[in-house]
């Protein structure tokens, strides 16, 4: 399964890491890829460190175990870096994207990781665009830029449809979430 991409999402309970993984999975499925999206269910508590995963592949995915060697890691909250080893199992050429106001060089040093490290201010972007710090949707935009996993235009088109379904009862937030994705895509830096 050479085309397989495995992704691990680090967040805090309530930040939407599970939603991010599901949205990414659904959009990737729309582009014809085989996907899995699943959180790690533990005792769920608001604010506690949580995990979610994706597998995305051109080939059929049969495995049903946890992801232990993700090639891509997205971190939704910068304070997790001192609590959780987000580099665990990540290969040397892996990609790590962090919601932070620090820059890539500072992050690399902090992580002790020499691979591909990207930084984006997802709290700042979502506060301006959505009106509250929801880091999960901007992190999707940053992840697409950092990984090139899916063609950007197609991704935007499909995620808009997902937002319209998901937020059918509050359509006013669709635009802000889309703008967050677009800004994060532009502003994420390695």
């Amino acid at each position, binding site marked *: 399964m050479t085309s397989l991409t495995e992704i691990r999402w680090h967040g805090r309970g309530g930040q939407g890491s599970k939603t991010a993984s599901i949205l990414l999975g659904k959009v990737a499925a729309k582009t014809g890829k085989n996907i899995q999206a699943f959180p790690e269910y533990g005792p769920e508590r608001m604010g506690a460190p949580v995990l979610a995963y994706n597998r995305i592949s051109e080939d059929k995915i*049969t495995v049903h175990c946890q992801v232990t060697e993700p090639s891509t890691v997205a971190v939704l909250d910068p304070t997790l870096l001192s609590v959780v080893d987000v580099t665990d199992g990540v290969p040397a050429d892996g990609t790590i994207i962090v919601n932070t106001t620090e820059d890539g060089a500072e992050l690399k040093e902090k992580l002790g990781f020499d691979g591909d490290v990207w930084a984006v201010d997802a709290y700042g972007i979502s506060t301006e665009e959505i009106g509250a710090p929801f880091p999960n949707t901007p992190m999707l935009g940053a992840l697409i830029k950092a990984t090139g996993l899916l063609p950007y235009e197609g991704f935007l088109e499909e995620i808009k449809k997902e937002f319209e379904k998901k937020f059918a009862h509050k359509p006013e937030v669709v635009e802000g979430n889309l703008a967050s994705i677009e800004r994060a895509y532009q502003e994420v830096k390695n």
Partner: protein
Amino acid sequence: MSNQVALTGNEVMAQAMRQINPDVVAAYPITPQTAMVQVFSQFVADGNVDTEYVTVESEHSAMSATVGASAAGSRAMTATAANGLALMWEILYIASGTRLPIVMPVVNRALSGPINIHCDHSDAMGARDAGWIQFFAENAQEAYDNAIQAVRISEHEDVRLPSMVNLDGFIISHAVENLEILADDEVEEFVGEYHADNYLLNSESPIAVGPLDLQDFYFEHKMQQSVAVENVKDVVLKVAEEYKGISGREYGLFEEYKLDDAEIAVVALGSTTGTAKAAVDNLREQGVKAGLLKIRLYRPFPAQEIADALKDLKAVAILDRAETFSTTGGPVFADVKAALYDIKADVEATNYIYGLGGRDIKVGEIESVFTDLQQVVETGNVEQTINYLGVRE
């Protein structure tokens, strides 16, 4: 026309229930089944189905109401998991003994205690002798396909028995996967309208259901139930053939994965069989003749067919996601070993109990089982028959 979707196992099973459009659903929510009946109850509230949804105060009542509805002549379904299934216990036997073709998704979860909400098969395995047909699924696609086929199998005139459609808790029920669902009209046509031969609400031909049945007839009725169970395998294969016509997907009693020329193999059921396929692929790349037998129909147990498929192996490991506390291994092991004994097969068989309470099982762990099997073949000696895989010392 089929549709590609990306949904959780629970959402997909709710779609299957919507498409089956049962007359009655009586269900009580329990993790990890909750989302299934929640989504389905939304379909009822939105008028997407014709179903009468009965909210009940327990699983004992859920199964009792489903039995009542089925005996009255309607197509009835429910769904449960773990302790909910355990609470249905008494009525499970009444459903099968009364020959009611109820279809029930079971989202497999460990039985308490200690309390745990994650996947193992202790719930379904405890009910394996309750007279229900039991299907297991590798993924959400298979769970969906099994649910639709189960309606036809259960209601078949040679069967008339209830079915449990098992899917692994969280691993399948809560994970989003891409799969294909059939068009609504295809499912409607495939399951057809249900017409019970004899039913309570038939004023033309009134009957009693569930009366006292003592020494003079109980045994004969149990014998009839046994005959019906004997018929299940043929009906499963016939329905699978017809289902292939509308879905393009092939089903049997079990799936043989690279088993043809295999020297060593594992036998398993549920989501772990997908992980085992990756292990088999890795070993094949190294030139090891490894294979997998994935059980789809667990009750009734296709003993002869499974023994025939395994008889040319040198060694086989049976994986069980449930402990029986019999000191003689897991339930699937006991069944497979007995089947091999019956045909006097010369195959060393070992047992691995794994994944209890949702403990993750990885590709490498299944590869280590194959390494053990290679050792058995090389030395001709089984050091440990019953093993525990992935447990800390």
